[in-house]
């Protein structure tokens, strides 16, 4: 994929970062406004598509670190499970940390809605990691076909048989 024109690059430079801010906002306010972890995570993941389309494949490949996204995905899933298990005193995956509406909060650091917002953030992490990795892997596969690196045999799980 080749980089696009200067106009597209300029717009992308401004808009792509805005997508991250907007996605984080949607994830953070998922318990109060429409949206949530899945939706916000998908918005954040569009950042990589912006970079890929506007900046081109070379910049994309040199810029992306797969480890970060793998880490995000793993941490998201584990954190979601742990926050869900906080509801054990009441029942499994039922939020017992929530403070009833109108009651005095324990601390301004503890969210009013208990674990819901934390689980939102955890799911947001996972979706950001997963969707970004999907883009990275699929582009990597296209690139291999373009350069002929992976042609002439099947790749993947059976590569050791050859």
């Amino acid at each position: 994929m080749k980089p696009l024109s200067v106009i597209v690059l300029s717009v992308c430079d401004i808009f792509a970062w805005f997508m991250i801010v907007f996605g984080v906002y949607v994830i953070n306010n998922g318990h109060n406004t429409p949206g949530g972890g899945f939706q916000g995570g998908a918005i954040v993941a569009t950042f990589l598509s912006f970079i890929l389309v506007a900046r081109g494949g070379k910049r994309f490949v040199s810029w992306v670190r797969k480890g970060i996204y793998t880490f995000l995905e793993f941490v998201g899933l584990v954190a979601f499970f742990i926050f869900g298990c906080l509801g054990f005193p009441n029942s499994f995956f039922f939020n017992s940390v929530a403070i009833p509406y109108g009651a005095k909060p324990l601390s301004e650091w503890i969210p009013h809605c208990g674990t819901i917002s934390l689980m939102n953030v955890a799911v947001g992490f996972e979706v950001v990691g997963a969707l970004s990795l999907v883009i990275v892997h699929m582009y990597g596969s296209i690139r291999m076909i373009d350069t002929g690196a992976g042609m002439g045999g099947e790749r993947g799980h059976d590569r050791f048989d050859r």
Partner: protein
Amino acid sequence: MKKMIFIVGAIVLGGLLCGMFEAIHPFGVPEQTEMDEYFLLHALSDRSAQNVVTSMVFDFRGFDTLGEAAVLFTALSSISALFRDGGKHE
């Protein structure tokens, strides 16, 4: 003979489908509304989440969401296995 069996089977299946649509519950007229009302009334007062959908997804049906997250994880693992680089290139 095969054609006859196929036609009879199709007619029986069509009849069953028609019967199913006859017996289906009318849209917008729920029989028991206690549970719906409970969720709508208690989403804000108990769970303190203004977004009822979020309180459903992450609280009342949190286990379901864990399954969704696991599905996403599995799908990504499959994609990684399918699209990964094939090791050494000559």
